Each structure stands twice: as C-alpha cells, then as structure tokens.
C-alpha cells in the first residue's frame, strides 16, 4: 500500500507540529514566571522599605504616636487569637457539612441547591460577611466588637473553602476502601469515622490552612465589625497558671489585627509610618507564605503514608 504522504512531506509537517508544542511551553513558562516575578518584586520592595524596622522591638511593642517606637505586638497577637477562633469554629462545622454532603445527603434537588449555594458563598464579597456579622454577632447576639465576633465572621468567610476542600479530600478515598469496610458490616458512620476521615486528614488540613491564609489578610469584614486601630493592651492570656488553666476573657476583648494596623499606618502622611506599614505587610505576607508551606508539607507527609 502506498503511503498517504512521502517521507519529506511527513518530516516537514512534523517539524511545524513540534514547533507549536515548543511555543506553548515558552508561552506558559513566560506567564508563570511573570506572575511569580511580580510577587517576588512586591515582597522584596516591602522588605527593602521596611528593612530597618525589622527587629525584636517591632514585635514586642504596642503602637505608638512615634513611628520609630511603634510595634505590632497587639496586631499579631490579635490576628493569632482571631485565627485560633476561626480555625476552631470553621474546622468542625466545615468538615461536618462536607461529610454530610459527601457521605449522607441523598442525591436530589435539595442537595443540589445546597451544593450550588455553598460554591456561591465562596464568591460573596467579604464586606457582605462583615455587614452580616455586624448585625448578627455584634448586635443581635451581643458579642460586641470582640475577638470572638471577628473569629466567627472569618470562620463564616472561609467555611465554603473548607467545605469544598474537605469534599475533595473525602472523594479521593477510593470506593474500594469503603466497600471493604461496608463488606465487613460497618455502618455509614463507622466507615466515615474509622476510614474515610483518617485517610483524608491531609487534604482536610490543607483546606483549613488555605482557608486560614485567606482569612488572615481579610480587612474589610473586621473593619466593619469594629476592630480598633490603636490598642495598647493585650487580651487576657487564654492559658493561666491556676485551675482550670483556661481563661475565656480574651474572647470578649477588643482587638486589632495585622491588616488593620497596616491600613492605619499607610493612611498616615508621615514617611516613617509608611516604613512601618511596609515592614508589617512583609511580615503578614511571610505569615501567609509560611502557612502555605505548612499546608504543602502536610500534604506531602500524608501522601507518603497513604498511597493508593
């Protein structure tokens, strides 16, 4: 049988097809590196502007009217406490919701409506969550302009992220494993608790941390519920030296947070405060990157342990 095209023709055609392939690699790499480059430039710029403010004092001092004496102590403590509340609330609620949707919910239109709305929630502007929280948590439930209100608000904000992330993780557990457990006579809850959840812990924690790294930078909702921008005291410590060793006063405390502090400094005309803002922004960015690194590490660890 005669060939469709002769050898020379075939080669020429292949040459162009392979060039097209290479072109895509170059294009993709260019776009990727531009994005990363921008981020790197931003980060380096912040570090350069704020360079001489980095130091122990910056972390251990309260804000001050004098730029060179101002620190971010109340801001990073506030942010940490808010993140703690956010994680403690969003994780169990989000995971429970995901388990219900993935393992229990019947496949009908009600479930579909819920699923679509969970996805939509992720796209709601954060200021809207702030307004909701102001009306509901601050006034209706009378929680005040407190760490608790802020934590609950951000928990609400990242709930869709955790639900979607957890569902992905649950879905990654092979059907064969569920069948094995059901085949031994396990109930739905036993299959979930003994198998599906433990095997998807890595993915769930990754989702949590990605959610938290979104929440840590949120400014609008916590301004809305009334974070203070100048705080020269710390909330009470959650852990005390005396029985019962736990103290919940900090939940009701007024607070400030990293983004608020940065916003406050940026809005001042004094150049020295701009440098403070740059330093604080670099630290906030660093915190976010660190959290993402932890997420990657967790995922890596669990992948190594369980490899279907």
């Amino acid at each position, binding site marked *: 049988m005669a060939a469709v095209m002769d050898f020379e023709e075939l080669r020429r055609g292949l040459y162009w097809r392979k060039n097209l392939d290479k072109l895509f690699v170059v294009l993709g790499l260019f776009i990727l590196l531009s994005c990363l480059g921008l981020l790197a430039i931003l980060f380096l710029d912040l570090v350069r502007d704020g360079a001489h403010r980095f130091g122990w004092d910056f972390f251990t001092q309260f804000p001050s009217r004098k730029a060179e004496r101002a620190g971010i102590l109340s801001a990073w403590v506030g942010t940490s406490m808010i993140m703690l509340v956010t994680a403690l609330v969003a994780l169990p609620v989000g995971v429970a919701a995901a388990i219900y949707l993935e393992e229990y919910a019947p496949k009908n239109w009600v479930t579909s409506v819920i699923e679509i709305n969970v996805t939509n929630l992720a796209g709601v502007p954060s200021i809207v969550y702030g307004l909701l929280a102001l009306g509901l948590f601050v006034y209706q439930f009378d929680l005040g302009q407190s760490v608790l209100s802020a934590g609950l608000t951000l928990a609400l904000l990242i709930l869709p992220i955790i639900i979607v992330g957890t569902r992905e993780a649950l879905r990654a557990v092979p059907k064969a*494993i569920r069948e*094995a*457990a*059901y*085949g031994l006579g*396990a109930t739905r809850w036993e299959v979930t608790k003994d198998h599906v959840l433990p*095997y998807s812990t890595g993915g769930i924690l990754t989702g949590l941390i990605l959610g938290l790294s979104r929440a840590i930078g949120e400014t609008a909702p916590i301004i809305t519920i009334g974070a203070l921008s100048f705080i020269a005291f710390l909330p009470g410590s959650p852990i005390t030296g005396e029985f019962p060793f736990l103290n919940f006063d900090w939940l009701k405390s007024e607070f400030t947070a990293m983004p608020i502090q940065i916003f406050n400094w940026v809005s001042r005309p004094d150049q020295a405060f701009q440098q403070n803002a740059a330093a604080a922004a670099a630290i906030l960015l660093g915190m976010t990157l660190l959290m993402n690194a932890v997420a990657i590490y967790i995922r890596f660890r669990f992948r190594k342990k369980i490899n279907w």
Partner: protein
Amino acid sequence: MNTNVVDRADAPTLSIAMEERGAARANAAKAVAEKLDFWYGSNQALKNINLLIPENQVTALIGPSGCGKSTFLRCFNRMHDLQPDTRYAGSIMLHPENVNLVGKDVDPIEVRMRIGMVFQKPNPFPKTVFENVAYGLRLRGFNNRTELGERVEKALRGAAIWDEVKDRLNDSALALSGGQMQRLCIARALATEPEILLFDEPTSALDPIATAKIEELITELRQRVTILIVTHNMQQAARVSDFTAFMYLGELVEVGATSQIFTNPSKKATEDYITGRYG
C-alpha cells in the same frame, strides 16, 4: 446436614437438574436463590434466578462480561443497597435459619456481618496488617488484646499468609505484594467466620503465581466455609469449583457439577461460551 439436595423441596430447579443428569452429590443447601430479580433503576439486571448454593462446597459463576454474575454475587451481601435506586424481588434464603438475605425487613448490615466478601482488586485498609484483620472483630465488639491476637493469627493462618507476615503485623498492609494483599483481604473476611464467602474475580489483578496460591487456598477453604466465586477465567472455574452456573444476559442458563458443565453442557449457549465462541 447430610441430606441430599434432591430431598429439599425448596430448591426445585437445581434438584431436578441434578437428578436428571446424575450429578456429583451436592451437600445440603446453605443458601437458595428463588425467582430472584434485580433492577438498577428501570434496567433489569437479573431475571428469575433460581440457584442452590451447597454448604462447604465451591460454586462458580461464569458468563460473558455484563451477564450479571457480579450483580448476582453482590445480592448475597446486599452491596447494591449502597447505591440509590436499586431493587430486589424474589428471595435468597439463608439456611438453616431461613432468613431472606434480600428481604426488605432484613438489615443489610446484619447480612454483611454474616456473609464475607473478597473483591476484585486487593483493597486492604491503609492500616497495619494486624488492624486490617482485626477491624471486623472490633466492629463486633472484640476489644481484648489477647483474644484479638488469637483470632487474627487464626485468620491469617487460614488464609495461608501467617508465615509471611507474622513478623510484620505492625507494618502497613500497603507494603505487601499484590498477592499477599489479596490473601490478607481473605484473612480479613475469614476473621469474622462468615457463613458464606463471596469472591468477585479475586485473581483478575494478580500474576499467575499469586493466582495459583489463591486458587489453592480456595480449595482448602471450602472444607470450612461455603464459597461462591465469580470468575472470568474458565480454567479457574474448572480447577476450583464443585458446581458451575453459567449466566447470560441476566439469566441463569445452566447449572451443574463442574465436570459436567465443562465436558458435557446441555445448552448450546453454554457450550459456545465454554469453547470460546464468544465471551
């Protein structure tokens, strides 16, 4: 339990078949499917299946892809109940208590606690070897470490894998080879002493040596447990089973002693399948 199958009035179809053809004697019935129909939604996958599963013998289900043999097997431990929109009609009676395994009033979890299953692809839990075998026992409330240990050892010995894993009980089951994993899964099913053990093409993901070990194991196991096995491999059916049932398009075409089905089938369709004319 030495009554001949022919004496049982509740298994007319097979009894007649056996009698007519002077088959090898079947033990008393452990389970009897009668007028079993099954639907996925509106799609009827099983049509009027009548089959007797003799106690402590191996019954093989053969037939081309999509003929319903796996579907039939999964009726025995109600695996279909995990999917929405499935429906059974007719009965699978488990003897001697006369429990209808597919009855609406019978809890599928109770059924699965009595009928064990080994799947197509080895599916050990990503836990230790010990915990894999102990899991079924833990579900049944066994917590005593000594007793668990004894039962786990017994199950592992029963599945002919004890010597290979006795020093690795606390290692991950995922570190075992494919054949070892499958024998571990058999041990896991054996640990709870099931009344019937279902095998769904247990060697289709294994190499020939691992396959030979599993087949040898099945031949040993039948002295203690009733076995129902689905296989694509006709030589396998011929090697391990006492009785063979041929299914086609959701119906049971023919059933009889394995030696007869393979040497002297009575139906044309069976003969065509066995001689490789389709499948």
